[in-house]
């Protein structure tokens, strides 16, 4: 009797209501359909027909790891395995805790839907891998990638099956494995990161930049709100100074000026280290401002309630204020990380050969010189950047949704 009115939905009705309701809407729809069709046609034609992808195919290794010695390239694979184990196990353990702590309202119900969800999340990555293999189908690489997927699955399951209170240990182990991967690449007769290049260098600068600049940024934000005038002045001064300088200037400064600042006798840091220092200095200042915004959004009554139950100021910050502050600024934080990921391409300016630089150099080398293949190399590089950025963006939305479970 009081059922809600049923609205009829059919594709034709929808089209009529939304695209062809009046003559001018119909005209606009038709015009845009033509435009879209044309762009899609040209784009697809370029990717599948006219594009000369030979340049990417022949230089794929160069694009992925730069001039990393080929005899040592097993180290890259091994490092990839270590990172995969660490990340997957940590993710599994965190997932387990989410399940234990709360009735996870957002988890897809059936195993089939969970699998579909996982596939959707991994889609950009899968697309990248498929692209790489369609460019250069190497049996050994295929076996290794299959092994990576298997290892990721096993580690994830292991993370989930561990007792929930071991989460911290697993996460710590994940970080340790990432450090292990770094050591494996650079130490024990390995290749120092000043000789890395291509996507490997891009990823290293981005990941290390994020891992260092996040805690430093949080500390700066807390320092800027400190009651001690000296701490406040130092943090505010640092943040405002760094934010007033273009990133590229910082990169140049790190390259040319750091040498003067170090005491004589200490070894000169490599160009990559200098670039990393510049990125961390720059990004931490921005993160500090983002986090400060988050800290301000937590009402003072939360601090009062924590103090009233006997918590000291530092645990109050750690357990009550920071979690709420960080949660509210996840989108801005991830935005900053995505910026950092893409800004790593600026190290071209100090002579490092990360992904974009390799892509540029290829077009003027050997057989490919003068063949006008910039479009191919730039599109490939853009595609790789997009996979990274889009994955980060999607994961941040997901994180935000999950953490949003408890908000008012």
């Amino acid at each position, binding site marked *: 009797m009081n059922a809600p009115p049923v609205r009829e939905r059919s594709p034709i009705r929808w089209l009529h209501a939304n695209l062809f309701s009046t003559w001018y809407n119909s005209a606009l729809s038709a015009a845009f359909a033509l435009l879209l069709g044309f762009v899609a046609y040209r784009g697809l034609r370029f990717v599948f027909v006219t594009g000369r992808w030979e340049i990417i195919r022949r230089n794929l290794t160069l694009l992925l790891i730069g001039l990393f010695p080929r005899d040592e390239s097993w180290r890259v694979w091994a490092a990839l395995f270590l990172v995969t184990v660490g990340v997957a196990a940590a993710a599994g353990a965190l997932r387990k805790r989410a399940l234990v702590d709360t009735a996870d309202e957002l988890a897809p119900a059936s195993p089939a839907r969970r699998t579909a969800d996982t596939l959707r999340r991994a889609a950009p990555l899968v697309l990248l891998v498929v692209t790489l293999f369609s460019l250069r189908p190497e049996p050994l690489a295929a076996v290794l990638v299959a092994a990576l997927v298997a290892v990721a699955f096993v580690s994830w399951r292991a993370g989930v099956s561990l007792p929930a209170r071991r989460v911290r240990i697993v996460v710590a182990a994940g970080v340790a494995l990432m450090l292990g991967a770094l050591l494996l690449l650079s130490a024990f007769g390995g290749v120092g990161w000043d000789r890395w290049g291509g996507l490997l260098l891009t990823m290293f600068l981005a990941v290390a930049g994020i891992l260092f600049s996040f805690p430093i940024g949080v500390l700066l934000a807390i320092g800027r709100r400190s009651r001690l005038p000296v701490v406040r002045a130092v943090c505010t001064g640092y943040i405002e100074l760094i934010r007033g300088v273009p990133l590229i200037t910082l990169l140049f400064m790190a390259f040319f000026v750091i040498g003067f600042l170090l005491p004589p006798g200490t070894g000169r840091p490599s160009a990559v280290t200098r670039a990393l220092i510049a990125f961390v200095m720059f990004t931490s200042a921005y993160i500090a401002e983002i986090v400060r915004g988050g800290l301000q959004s937590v009402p003072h*009554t*939360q601090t009062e*309630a924590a103090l009233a139950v*006997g918590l000291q100021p530092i645990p109050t910050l750690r357990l009550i204020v920071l979690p709420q502050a960080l949660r509210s600024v996840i989108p801005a934080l991830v935005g900053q990380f995505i910026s950092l990921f893409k800004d790593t391409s600026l190290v071209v300016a100090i002579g490092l050969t990360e992904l974009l630089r390799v892509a540029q150099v290829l077009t003027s080398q050997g057989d490919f010189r003068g063949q006008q293949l910039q479009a191919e190399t730039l599109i490939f590089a853009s595609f790789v950047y997009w996979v990274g950025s889009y994955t980060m963006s999607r994961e941040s939305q997901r994180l935000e949704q999950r953490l949003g479970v408890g908000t008012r």
Partner: protein
Amino acid sequence: MTNHEAMIVFEGVDKFFGSFQALRSVDLTVGRGQNIVVCGPSGSGKSTLIRCINRLEAHDRGRVVVDGIELTDDLRKIQVVRREVGMVFQQFNLFPHLSVLDNITLAPRHVRHRPKAEAEAEAMELLERVRIPEQARKYPGHLSGGQQQRAAIARALAMKPKVMLFDEPTSALDPEMIKEVLDVMQELATTGMTMIVVTHEMKFARAVSNRIVFMDEGEIVESGPPETFFENPREERTKRFLSQILQ
């Protein structure tokens, strides 16, 4: 009453916010196990008074002594007092990012360093006592106002305080939820807890309190047992307040 039995003592306490004087030479002694209701018009200093007891506000002149410990800038003493004094706020102030259970076990675990399992078992007992055990795993945002306030009471009780402060605990609640909170408070009063309650619930004051303190413009105007306070108020300001609130 000997000094030994005094739980809370105010002696000539002044408190300023800038040039505004929120408390004017307040003298007040609360005995162990007593239940005091503080009332008065808004802005009269009631909240400031009880916030001086756990030093969410620092008084500017005079002495505040809680269970024999005088509150000064000494952080360790403040810490000891805060562990002994529980507080319930008008707006509940539960931690929205933690489940009800985690809200309650937070202080026992991180201040008293109790093992998680024990803290949780005790928290469940407290939730039984405030009659919302089924809400333990939910987040504060999913509870009604009355349930949130009862969870907040359980959170304060988890530290096993000797004193409970209530700052207008029912003022932010819908009328039908006031009773469930007052019932819990009334039951708490029978356990011998020392309570100071800022409230306008005069029925509660009459039924539960040993003494009613009436404040206006930062001063304690009048105080006395509920019968005398309601039947024979001495001061003109008290009469006016009562006539407004009891009509």
